[in-house]
């Protein structure tokens, strides 16, 4: 009954990523260059998967965030769907960090130890053409979730 509680972060990510629809994520924004506005059906499907992912192993107390790159500047990223809290960096656009860049470019998982027990785990999210369309960040060790 409680076996799921032994799943580590990589296994949580592996299961969760199976249910995040990359095609919907790819087309989650109404306009990729305008103000933030969502295709509701796509957002709701992705958000639902993100919430479920956070609950796969509640003992891990993970926060899940999905990032995308701006198509007009790949050095700029933004959280496009947040689970139960914001990323450490907040809700706005920002320069891509090296860890996330490597995930977008290599398709490999990266780990970013932020100190004070807070660790970000980055995983690629692919569409049905196996293209990377976003990065899943799982944040562990957060005591006070970032919210506004």
């Amino acid at each position, binding site marked *: 009954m409680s076996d799921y509680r032994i799943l580590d972060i990589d296994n949580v990510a592996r299961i969760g990523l199976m249910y995040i629809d990359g095609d919907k994520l790819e087309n989650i924004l*109404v306009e990729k260059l305008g*103000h*933030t*506005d*969502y*295709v*509701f059906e796509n*957002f*709701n499907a992705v*958000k*639902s998967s993100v*919430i*479920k992912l956070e609950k796969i192993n509640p003992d891990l107390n993970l926060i899940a*965030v999905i990032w995308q790159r701006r198509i007009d500047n790949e050095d700029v990223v933004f*959280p*496009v*769907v*947040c689970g*139960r*809290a*914001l990323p450490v960096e907040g*809700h706005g656009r920002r320069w891509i960090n090296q860890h996330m860049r490597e995930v977008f470019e290599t398709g490999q998982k990266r780990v970013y130890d932020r100190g004070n027990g807070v660790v970000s785990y980055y995983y690629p999210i692919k569409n049905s053409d196996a293209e990377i369309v976003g990065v899943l960040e799982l944040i562990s060790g957060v005591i006070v*979730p970032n*919210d*506004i």
Partner: protein
Amino acid sequence: MNIYLIKDYYRIECMTGDIVEKGYEKGFKKFDKRIDFTSAKNQFISFQVIVDSQGRKVNKISVEFSDLSGPSTIPGSEYKAYIEWYHNINGSYIPDMLVPLGETELEFRIPLSEKYLLNQRVGALWVDLFIDREVEPGQYNGTITVNADGEEKRFEIGVDVRNVTVPTKSRIIADLNNYADSISRYYPKVRANKNRYNDGSFFALESEHVKLAREHRSVFHNLGYKHSGTVVDSFAPEIEGEGKDIRIKSWERYDRHFGPYLDGSVFKGSRRGQYPIEFLYLPFNMGWPSSYEKWGSKGYKTENRRIISEFVRHFEEKGWTQTYLEFLLNHKKEYRFFPYTIDEIWYEHDEEGLEAYYDVIRGTFEDTRAKFIFRIDSSNHYGNHFNTKYSDWCKMWVVGTGMFCWFPESVPVMKEKGNILWIYGGGMLGEIGKPLHANFSVAITCFMTGVDGYCLWNTTHCGDNYLVTPHGNGSVTVYYPGVEFGYDGPLPSLRLKVIRNSNQTADLLKLTCGFDDEGPGLKRDAERLVNMHYGYKDMSSWWREKPPFVNEPPRYWDFGPNFRQYVVRPHYLDKSPAIIENLGRDVIKLLETGSIRDIAKGIELAF
């Protein structure tokens, strides 16, 4: 040493002794011997005691108030004095935080602080005098004695109490809006207490804010959930189960938190009466009680409707039927938690989210004596929405002044539908240096445009450096923490006093409503009176013509500097702050005589 009195609509800069309201000097008076007021009953009047030390240090300043004698007696105990604390606003030292005299560790001396205000020259007291509703009308006289290091000065005070009574309950709501928990951070003991939402310490602190608002004709409003949809501890009852099995597990903590507001017991001893709080946010949002994971499913609807029905039953059983209980969706898509912006709809298709949510809750709360209400905050699309099904569903509208001023025709529509209508605006309070009749004019605008209240935003937000320069030069700050002076509760700002005093006049004006279409035409006279004081020919000055782009989607509007031409010019500009006193006095006269004729002859224009 120069000791004098001034009224409640100017302030004195403490380093120079100059008046703060530069450019608005007309109407400024110093009172050296005697000060006179006209007052209604059940009204506060306010003035300031100014001690200009002219460069000397003053170790101890005291003040004594005698009883006021007249047809009956107004006891000296009806006075309350506050030390004015000065903030550095762009290099000027302007009073705003008020520290109750004799109730904290702060003593009234010059300088108030050897470190921060070393070159302080002027000290001031803000003084409230309450005229009880039982006071017999007539002329009252008393004395005020100020002693500064042995130098004594005595003033006479006269109050002409008229046979008009300020309504105890507000007719125009001054809403002090906040987001939980924006209080604890300013109170080290409460902040350090991890059990504060259970052991009553947070409730005690929050209730001091609630009571302070009530005393100042305002309502403390605290939204209990975050943008993620997560409800702050104790702002919702504990729930358990899911789907058809979801239920309230315990009301115990929620009732301990809000019960005293809802039954009015928290207001015991208030001059404004022990009646329930007027408005309260509910915890419902797109992420509570049902997880957004279920959005669009039948289970989402089931869970919301089951919990709402438990709320309805609980509030009925408790008899909590006098407070408006608000469903408010504060969601904004830019925070990435939800795809809709329901708080001030921006994209037209966000209406889909509003409609879907209303479909979830409709039919659950309408047929009860408890006053559940679906509220919407609107600006950009107000013109498109005010006369649609949305104003049938949403019975409470909080509307941005920028767009509201284009739609005077919306007010009768809202009123006919029985809706509550408030206004808000980014600069509604404004920085501390803004003249005080700007705040007064907000309350008057409510009367002149026919709305029921105004919303000030984030009013506990003073920032960590509030003693020196509050956040944004005090552009949102209404409350200050008293902890620096050994007082573990909120202190009022001088501007909260102005809000209260302004709302007294606005509430008196509201008494004329109902006499506009038939009968003596008292409301029309009241509107004429206000227009005369503001120098306006007619009611059109309270509105603006619709801009040429009004039918374009708001996302294509140009909100740059050119946008200003399409909003109402601030009413306080070019007027004297003395309009607060002059108009206030004439409103009392209007209500007493029932006619504008005699007043119009002797009107004292303040511009």
